[in-house]
């Protein structure tokens, strides 16, 4: 599998606070790469740097597209989505609440439709070429509505959907931009086990059928351990471990980061057993 994203020496400082300290990793095409770590480890900051919302203090972010390489740290946020085709979702869901589910998915196809509408002029005149393109856009929206199980709610306002549906709608909206890399910020937050399982199959479907790279921030280990091909662990802005789910699960540095430094340098047996059960269970 070819490398899709290469993050080299990424550092992000906010005044005196170093949120990310010299983090390097790579994410491959057609793989799910998870970024995990305790709260405040800098996971979302990595995402914000990748999608252009923050300008990194130091470091380069390379997105490979065949022979072409996009330097994400130099692009403005909307250009990242437009040209490099990196789509993202947000930790606190950011839908267009007063617009219908279908409209949310059509807004995601804005650039394509804008071109087809001749920057509004053709569309204003009601030309056929625009109508055709719009029909195709609706078909794409219908496809993702079907995949995310939201077809029945297509005409309802996004704000009227239950929480789990809103999360899935955000993923569907990101996918409607036809991304090369999908960044998901805690997609399973607030979901029950059944919904998490559905999310797993949705993400695997995206990985297998659409052949794109998925970058995932998640706390829910049942999601992370099951579907990730590669896991990167951050703590206090530094990368402390990296590898397959199996490797990460047994890494002492990871266990320490999650459970805190023990005075005896050893985990109490019942906690270790719990952790073992928890992680292998997922």
């Amino acid at each position, binding site marked *: 599998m070819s490398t899709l994203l290469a993050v080299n020496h990424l550092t992000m400082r906010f005044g005196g606070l170093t949120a990310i300290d010299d983090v390097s990793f790579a994410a491959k095409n057609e793989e799910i790469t998870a970024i995990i770590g305790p709260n405040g480890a800098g996971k979302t900051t990595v995402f914000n740097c990748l999608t252009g919302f923050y300008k990194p203090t130091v470091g380069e972010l390379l997105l490979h597209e065949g022979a072409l390489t996009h330097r994400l740290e130099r692009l403005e946020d909307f250009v990242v989505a437009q040209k490099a085709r990196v789509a993202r979702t947000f930790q606190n869901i950011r839908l267009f609440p007063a617009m219908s589910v279908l409209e949310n998915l059509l807004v995601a196809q804005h650039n394509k439709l804008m071109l087809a509408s001749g920057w*509004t002029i053709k569309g204003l005149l009601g030309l056929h070429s625009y109508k055709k393109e719009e029909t195709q856009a609706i078909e794409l929206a219908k496809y993702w509505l079907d995949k995310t199980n939201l077809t029945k709610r297509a005409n309802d306002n996004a704000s009227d959907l239950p929480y789990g549906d809103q999360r899935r709608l955000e993923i569907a909206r990101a996918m409607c*931009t036809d991304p090369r890399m999908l960044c998901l910020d805690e997609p399973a937050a607030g979901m029950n086990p059944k919904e998490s399982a559905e999310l797993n199959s949705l993400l695997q479907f995206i990985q297998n059928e659409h052949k794109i790279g998925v970058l995932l921030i998640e706390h829910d280990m049942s999601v992370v351990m099951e579907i990730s091909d590669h896991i990167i662990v951050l703590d206090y802005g530094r990368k402390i471990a990296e590898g397959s789910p199996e490797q990460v699960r047994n890494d002492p540095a990871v266990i320490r980061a999650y459970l805190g430094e023990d005075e005896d340098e050893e985990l109490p047996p019942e906690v270790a057993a719990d952790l073992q059960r928890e992680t292998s269970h997922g």
Partner: protein
Amino acid sequence: MSVLNSEKLPPILKDSVITGLITLVLAVPIVGLPTINATEGLQIEPRWSVVIWMVSAVFLGRLVLNFWWHREQTSSSSTILLNTPFLQSLQQLLKFIIPIGVLFALILPTMPFASRYVMDVAILVITYIMLGWGLNIVVGLAGLLDLGYVAFYAIGAYSYALLANYFDWSFWICLPLAGVFAAISGILLGFPVLRLRGDYLAIVTLGFGEIIRVILLNWYEFTGGPDGISGIPRPSFFGLEFKRSSEGTFSSFFGLDYSSMHRIIFLYYLILALALLTNFITLRLRKLPVGRAWEALREDEIACRSLGINPTNTKLTAFAIGATFGGLAGSFFATRQGFISPESFTFIESAVILAIVVLGGMGSQIGVVLASVVLIGGTELFRELEEYRMLAFGALMVGIMVWKPRGLLAHREPTIRIKTEGSS
């Protein structure tokens, strides 16, 4: 009201008595003891009967209100159940109201009651409807709070007045030019405020509106300053003027007797056509990607950026298109009045237009019509109240905001629907 728990009666009575007592305390010095000018100086002439009337009116009023508030709870829940079908039938009704309204607007000048006064008010109301629709693009759809919209109205009006005075160009050439100038100024305003949102944007646009007015006021050589511009040419009907003359005028061409109403009716249809054009284009834009992007921008700008929408372009188009309609309305205003001065473009105009958009329900086209009729037509109705007119205006606005905090018609219909199985 008949079903009332007996234990609720004492607190109700107590509350009403206290209200009555407060009224008594206030009314005795304020109403009860008026001073009159007598020959031997200022004297007090008590009017106890008025005080008694007031106190008993307040007491009884409070009693009735209390009974109303303490009705059985069941009745209030049943009204909620009634509400949904009621709202749905209202939606049904609206579908008929729009064509009927347009038809009524079209045949209004032929109505027997269409006097000069009625037509003037109708023209005024439709001008505000058009301005409301124009501002609705900026505020209602794109969610950019613009307190200086009157600036574009002024730019449109002065564009026409100056072009007509300096170059003697006809109204029909100046009208699109006024729109273009307003659009350019909209973009000029748009650039510095791109990063601003909400309150900050409102302050800057407020400043922009004032800047335009102050320039018009002080650039005496060019705009005539506070003297304004007079003798602005009236529009012609395809080259036929509305004058009392036997050659080349509207009345002579059609073999009609000259009447000053011809021009009024022509102006009425002109503004009606401009307003309907505004509405048509807005409704069309709403269903296009640019319109959806405006609404998306209003809902969540960060999400828009994450989807690759260029917020700069999107905001600038909203400003430019909104300003264009303001400019067109302004140029109509100039040709109708024949005289313009900076006095006509004060902040209160921006406030009224914004009030129309907000009271009508942000983003709602019919809401703007309703609010214009109520606010502009209403203030005309209350003209006989003289100084209390603004009081009625204010009370009306407060009332609408209390009972309909999201505007008269806050319902938003999706721009596109697809058939979904198992849903209505």
